[in-house]
């Protein structure tokens, strides 16, 4: 009689498809995954603790390093918490600029996510196309704030600088070209038979489970729950903009992928409206923010819809120049917790697919 036994397979922290330094300890039966244990914390830098020894303004550059793909959104997440805490009002033009850069950042994030997912599935082409578009967005960001990844652009009271000359034209050109490009990528991927074989019915997560795990963002909307903080708990100027929350009912990897594709179109639409407003509004893009800033004593939790899900900042202030405590609710950390359930009983290639669409940035997970 042949004897079979379960064995442990260590995947990562140095592995091509763990998107950084995540480590899985898989309990395997042949090629079938029985149990997944995730070992987090390889990229732990103690950002929450650092926040306690930095002033509010000094902490903003650290938020760029949380989810390093979408720095603008992180900037805004913290900025919004500080503004809620101190009750700062922001000029309209600055708000539209913020929305504009955040939506472009969402496109960048989804392009990187879809690209790296397909790279993990074996189609190396998409990530390079994705990076090509990403570079165009980064060029725009660079002209705005001088940095390509660590922006430090959005700050309490507004944004750091007004738009430079020629920005509107460049942005319009990008917004004009992009829908066709996304259409090309959709043509490359959406109806590909092998993509369907690899993604459909893989990594199922029922709406109830998704809510119980605290999964948010495109992951949750891919499970058919229409929950978008931009709609359900509007912030900034999203109430004045026209867009819809994209959902798909299939609960599988393919649904999450399609949600991301649709969201790129929606983001372009939002960015177009915002750009129109930026063009016609004039005036300052920031209010006076005191160099020694002491918010009132108290605590605040503010949340925004980051590309990866609900990004929340909890700040407790003791009235001093530094936060007493900062807690970051990072979206991929919560989404990742559902992964063991999603991949149980599947094969290793399915783990790669289901994990790729969770769309993590280890900087955000480990903080």
């Amino acid at each position, binding site marked *: 009689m042949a004897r079979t036994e379960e064995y442990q397979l260590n995947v990562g922290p140095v592995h091509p498809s763990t998107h950084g330094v995540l480590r899985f300890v898989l309990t395997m039966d042949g090629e079938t995954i029985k149990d997944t244990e995730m070992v987090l914390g390889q990229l732990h830098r103690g950002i929450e603790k650092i926040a306690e020894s930095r002033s509010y303004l000094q902490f903003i550059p650290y938020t760029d390093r949380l989810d390093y793909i979408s720095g603008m959104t992180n900037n805004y997440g913290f900025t919004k918490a500080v503004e809620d805490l101190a009750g700062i009002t922001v000029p309209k033009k600055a708000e539209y600029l913020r929305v504009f850069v955040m939506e472009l950042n969402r496109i960048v994030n989804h392009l990187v996510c879809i690209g790296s997912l397909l790279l993990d599935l074996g189609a190396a082409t998409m990530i390079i196309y994705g990076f090509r578009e990403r570079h165009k967005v980064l060029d725009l960001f660079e002209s705005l704030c001088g940095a390509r990844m660590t922006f430090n652009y959005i700050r309490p009271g507004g944004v750091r600088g007004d738009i430079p000359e020629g920005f509107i034209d460049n942005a319009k050109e990008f917004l004009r070209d992009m829908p066709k490009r996304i259409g090309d990528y959709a043509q*490359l991927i959406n109806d590909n038979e092998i993509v369907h074989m690899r993604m459909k019915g893989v990594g199922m997560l029922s709406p109830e489970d998704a809510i119980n795990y605290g999964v948010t963002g495109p992951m949750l909307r891919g499970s058919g729950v229409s929950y978008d903080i931009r709609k359900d708990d509007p912030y900034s100027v999203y109430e004045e903009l026209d867009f819809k929350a994209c959902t798909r009912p299939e609960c599988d990897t393919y649904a999450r992928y399609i949600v991301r594709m649709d969201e790129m179109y929606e983001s372009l639409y939002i960015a177009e409206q915002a750009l129109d407003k930026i063009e016609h509004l004039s005036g300052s893009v920031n209010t006076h923010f005191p160099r020694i800033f002491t918010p009132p004593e108290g605590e605040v939790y503010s949340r925004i819809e980051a590309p990866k899900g609900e990004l929340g900042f909890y700040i407790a202030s003791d009235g001093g120049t530094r936060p007493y405590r900062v807690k970051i609710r990072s979206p991929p950390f919560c989404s990742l917790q559902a992964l063991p359930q999603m991949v149980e009983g599947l094969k290793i290639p399915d783990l790669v697919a289901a994990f790729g669409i969770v769309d993590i940035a280890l900087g955000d997970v480990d903080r």
Partner: protein
Amino acid sequence: MIFENIYEIIAFILNSAGILQYMQSYSDALGISIAPKLIIILIETALLLVGVALMVMALTWMERKVLAHAQARLGPMITWYHGLLQPVIDGVKLLSKEDLMPKRADRWIYFIAPMIAFVPALLVFIPIPFGRDGAIISDLPMGILYVMAVSAISPIGILIGGWASDNKYSLLGALRAVAQDISYEIPMVLTVIGIVLITGSLSLQDIVLFQDKIWFVFLQPLGFIIFLVAAVAEMARIPFDLHESESEFVAGFFTEYSGMKFAFFFLAEYAHLFSIAAIMTTLYFGGWHGPMIPMIPPIITSIGWFTLKVLVIIFFTMWLRATVPRVRVDQILDIGWKVMIPLALFNVFITGLLVAGGVL
């Protein structure tokens, strides 16, 4: 002059240069009259080795360039004109790498596995006609059978290499690779039966000569599609590249290999790619047939046509790699056993009926 094979061509050249007679008399005097024959065979072997190595180098360069241009990049540009010397630089790099062996590896098997994988990839070329008028190493009467049998050896190298590395990734990768190789060899051989039924000969030269009017790709369209899919799987190319599956098992069965041992697996992979494309050309695309150009010796033109066809097929696989993702392991085996083999059997059945009915 009409030659049978490369041996005769080399003998003719040596003879007309006057070297052969000299060698013959010298070795007769020494009592080893077989020596000139052995020397000619050695020259043949060297020609094959150099030819395949050059082709592999060209293919690695082509792969980088095709992929790069498909992906809106340029690929290697620094090493000489459009990076043409990149394969040489790669070779130098691999040679200068430290040759590591895992501590608990099965030393001898670990050492011998790359050779077992590489040698069959070379031997396959023996009965393949590269051109007309004797551009063939040996026209074996059961050529196609020999090709299939020899190319079935290389999975052994993969399996023992994966086993000897003492690494779970390697072992799982090797098991996958072997499972895939075996399940796609069967439909491949079955489609060849269709061709053999029509030509009535196992010799590859006869199969090529049969196709001077019409290529088998038109006579055997279903067989060709099955052969193409099986060939992509045998070449271990995306969408069927379970051998590597780098996003799951790092590098599959050769995860632990480095330096020259890795280079041999790499060489074997590309030699295999070349050999299967060559077999496909021979079986389905009329081998070396093509319009002959006056003034140029037909042997050269025919080799040119053959190479062109092979490169087109290889370009197709590279294009495929730039377009589609990888199929999952169980799906690959499903396709192999549940779709390809029944279809291949059906193809044999139809062809048999047509041949028996005298249509073909």
